[in-house]
């Protein structure tokens, strides 16, 4: 027998039933505390020492009445598992894609399932430390926690290479184009208003034929190398020697290079060879530096 859709029909329907769910006295206490105090509470079984969240009045393992054994658990925890929900359904509280995680709150033994925001989907990993973000509008459900977000990390103090990390042959550089503005500012900083740097007509009569930068200006470009790159942040410069080899004209691009050449074990200092070159690879200056690399910071 064949059946065609024109002699056989379906009707649209809906199963909808207004309903009141009773939270129970134990559940109510949990939800009230969440709603009014923004505190997450768990129930501890005194026998097996397990702390349950969400709450329940009886331990599922020991069958002990645990309904009065309230303990406060932290608003923070660790993600023990997760998935990324990418399909869309009417029952979802947020628009997919979103991260659904199992979050073991600090002080609890049973992870709760909740939404995690503030992490790129591709970077989500188990072990992430998260903290609860409470909802502005209460619903007296677990959504009084709107979601969890990664714990604000304590800003980590950056530091350069320590003595032990430094190896002979390691090098770093910094490059900058020296402009007329740099030279005039440097004149102001140093008080060196020598006309060979500032007076073109005067400079025409010098062996250079035009204005040149102060020698200390390209020399100073080694400071970002030593202080910010190698060894880097936390370095103390003890001695710098320089021999100037060629002038720096306005518009020249100078590269300053520092290379570790000696480790002075006794003092835990480092000697570095320095070189400055211009855009034509001409040697502008060379020298050495003696530096004290950073020592690890106390926590």
């Amino acid at each position: 027998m064949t059946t065609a859709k024109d002699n056989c029909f379906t009707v649209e329907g809906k199963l909808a039933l207004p309903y009141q769910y009773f939270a129970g006295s134990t559940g109510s206490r949990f939800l009230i505390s969440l709603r009014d105090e923004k505190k997450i509470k768990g129930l501890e079984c005194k026998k097996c020492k397990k702390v349950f969240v969400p709450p329940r009045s009886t331990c599922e393992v020991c069958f002990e009445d645990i309904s009065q054994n309230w303990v406060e658990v932290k608003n923070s925890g660790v993600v023990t598992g997760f998935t990324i929900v990418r399909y869309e359904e009417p029952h979802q509280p947020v628009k997919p894609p979103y991260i659904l995680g199992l979050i073991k709150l600090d002080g609890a033994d049973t992870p709760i399932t909740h939404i995690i925001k503030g992490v790129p989907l591709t970077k989500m990993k188990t072990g992430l430390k998260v903290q609860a973000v409470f909802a502005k509008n209460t619903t007296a459900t677990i959504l009084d926690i709107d979601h969890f977000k990664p714990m604000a990390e304590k800003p980590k103090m950056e530091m350069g290479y320590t003595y032990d990390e430094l190896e002979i042959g390691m090098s770093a550089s910094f490059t900058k184009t020296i402009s007329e503005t740099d030279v005039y500012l440097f004149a102001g900083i140093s008080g060196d208003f020598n006309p060979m740097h500032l007076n073109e007509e005067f400079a025409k009569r010098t062996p250079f034929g035009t204005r040149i930068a102060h020698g200390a200006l390209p020399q100073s470009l080694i400071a970002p190398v030593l202080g910010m790159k190698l060894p880097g942040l936390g370095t103390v410069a003890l001695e710098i020697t320089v021999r100037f080899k060629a002038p720096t004209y306005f518009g020249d691009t100078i590269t300053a290079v520092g290379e570790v050449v000696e480790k002075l074990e006794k003092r835990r200092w480092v000697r570095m060879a320095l070189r400055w070159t211009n855009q034509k690879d001409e040697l502008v200056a060379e020298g050495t530096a003696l530096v004290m690399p950073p020592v690890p910071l106390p926590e």
Partner: protein
Amino acid sequence: MARRVAICAVAQTTWERNKWQERFQGMAIDVLDSLRKQTGVDFARKLQKQKKKKPGINMTISVSDDLFDARTISNNAMTDVLGGHFGCEEKVAQEGLQAIYYGLAAIQSGHNDIVLIMGHCKESQGQSRNMVTHVAFDPFYTRPVGLDFCAAAGLQAQAYGAKAGLTDQQLADIVVRARKNAALNPNIKELPQVTAAEVLNSAMLADPIRQLHAYPVSDGAVGMILAAEEIAVKITDKPVWITGVGNSMDSFFLGDRELTSNAALKQAAARAYKRAGIQDPRKAFDLLEVSDQYAYQLPMWLEGLGLCDEGKGPEWMQAGNLDKQHVNMSGGMLAGNPMILGGLVRAAEAALQLRGEAGDRQVAKAKRALAHGVMGPAGQFHTVAILARD
């Protein structure tokens, strides 16, 4: 010694994406007609009226889900086709394989001699399968965050993948194999073959679960006749003995469980093995039918069943053991059975194999088989049944 109980006949409709032209009752009556034709048994009440001595069905166990049927007590409207009017009727709303457990208990107790099992479901009728399973969660703690069985499976799949090192490629291979096997199963309709590349390129549902890793929405019905030994041998020449059944339920909240531990499945299997006298599950079965609702579950459940070491499911599969051990020659649940009927269809498939009636997917000389059913989010509840022929 308890009475021996046999599956005397099995019948099923085809499994399709949308049997829009069939009512629940229509699907069931086709199955019932086949079962009656195979065994020649009728309902006991009619026969008593005719004062015949021939034994009849004196208990019916239906399997259906109220929410998928969108009516409460979803068996009520089925009683005419279940023979339930004035008969003994029982309903399973857990997983369908449980009906075999109920039937076994009813016959072994001596209360009944012939039991009809009839399961039906049309997953296609609801707007979304996920909306139905969402309501399985509690309204305060887990429903508000949008959980449903698919999202719960995503959480478990992520955890199991990390533990066992299951790769996207291996997941794709599982799906490709399931569909290849299903092509030899005439009960599976409308299930296109796929390549591994197609699986790998299908959209993510709940990472790491992809669209093609999920069992397709399915409609259909499945039934069986169980009988006590003295009757079984009269109504069929190929009785399939139910030698052991076990089940186990894990915690309700996902966070209360260790999602990769297979705790419930291990217990269900241990109970079934003990009752069936099985020492080493790795050597015990000629075939296994496992309820893989999502591809990741196949290696995971096989670990739980003790077919391989814990965390070694992917390696075990890679070594070709799915084919060597004849796992899911029917295509498994990945080929499409409604959730509530998955385990019951697995048992029906195993029975067909043991009866030598599995056609192109027949495993030669199959004597003992395992059928597995699962229900609840992330495998909360498992049933394991051991079937054997003499």
